[in-house]
C-alpha cells in the first residue's frame, strides 16, 4: 500500500526531505519506522519517538492504512 510519511526536526535533516510517499508492506508502524530508520540512518530509536496518523497520536502496533499521513514525532522542545 501507499502511505505518506512526514519527517520533522532532526529526522527531516537526516532524511534530507520533509516527507515522502512510499510503498510499504510493514505489518505495523513500528516496523515501518525500522525500515525508514535503516534507509535514512535516523539516530533516534523508536522508543524515543511518538507516531501520529492523520493528525492524531497513534499506537506503534497499528497497521499502516493505505493513503494515510504518518508522522514520526521526535522528542519535542517547544516553550
Amino acid at each position, binding site marked *: 500500500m501507499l502511505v505518506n510519511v*512526514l519527517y*520533522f*526536526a*532532526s529526522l527531516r*535533516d537526516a532524511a534530507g526531505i520533509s516527507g515522502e510517499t512510499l510503498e510499504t508492506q510493514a505489518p505495523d508502524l513500528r516496523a515501518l519506522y525500522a525500515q525508514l530508520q535503516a534507509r535514512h540512518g535516523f539516530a*533516534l530509536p523508536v522508543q*524515543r519517538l511518538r507516531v*501520529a496518523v492523520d*493528525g*492524531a*497520536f497513534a499506537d506503534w502496533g497499528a497497521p499502516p492504512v493505505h493513503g494515510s499521513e504518518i*508522522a514520526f*514525532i*521526535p*522528542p*519535542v*522542545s*517547544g*516553550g
Partner: protein
Amino acid sequence: MARFRLSETPFDTATLRAQLLDARVGAYASFEGWVRDHNDDRNVHGLRYEAYATLAQSEGEAVLAEALATFDILDAHCVHRTGELAVGELAVWVGVTAAHRDAAFAACRYVIDEVKSRVPIWKHERYADGDAGWLHPQS
C-alpha cells in the same frame, strides 16, 4: 476562537491579556518564555521553532481543555511562536484567568508544562561557535 494558537509573527501579549479579562476575573496569572542569550552554558545567537501544525493545534487545545476541566479557572489561552527568533524574542505565552489566585497559578503552570512536554514543536538553536542543532530532550 481557538484557545491555542501558533504564530509565525511576533505577537502582542497586552492584547492577548485584554481578551481574557472581564468583571468576574479576580486573578490573572501569565507565563512567558523568552529566547535567552545562552542555554546550558552555550552562547545562543538565535533559534527556529518548527511545528507539526495540525497536531500541535489539536494537542494544544487538548492541554487547555484539560486545564479548564481540572482547575477552577475562567479561561486559559496559549500562543507559541514558530519560525526564526532572535535573542530577546518571545517564544511562548500562557494566560489564565480565575476568581482566585490558587487556581490561576496552578493552571498556568500546568499549561506550560504540558505544552513543553507534549505539543509537537521543536527548537533548533544556533550557537556562537557556529554549531547548530535540534533539541530533542530526554524525557
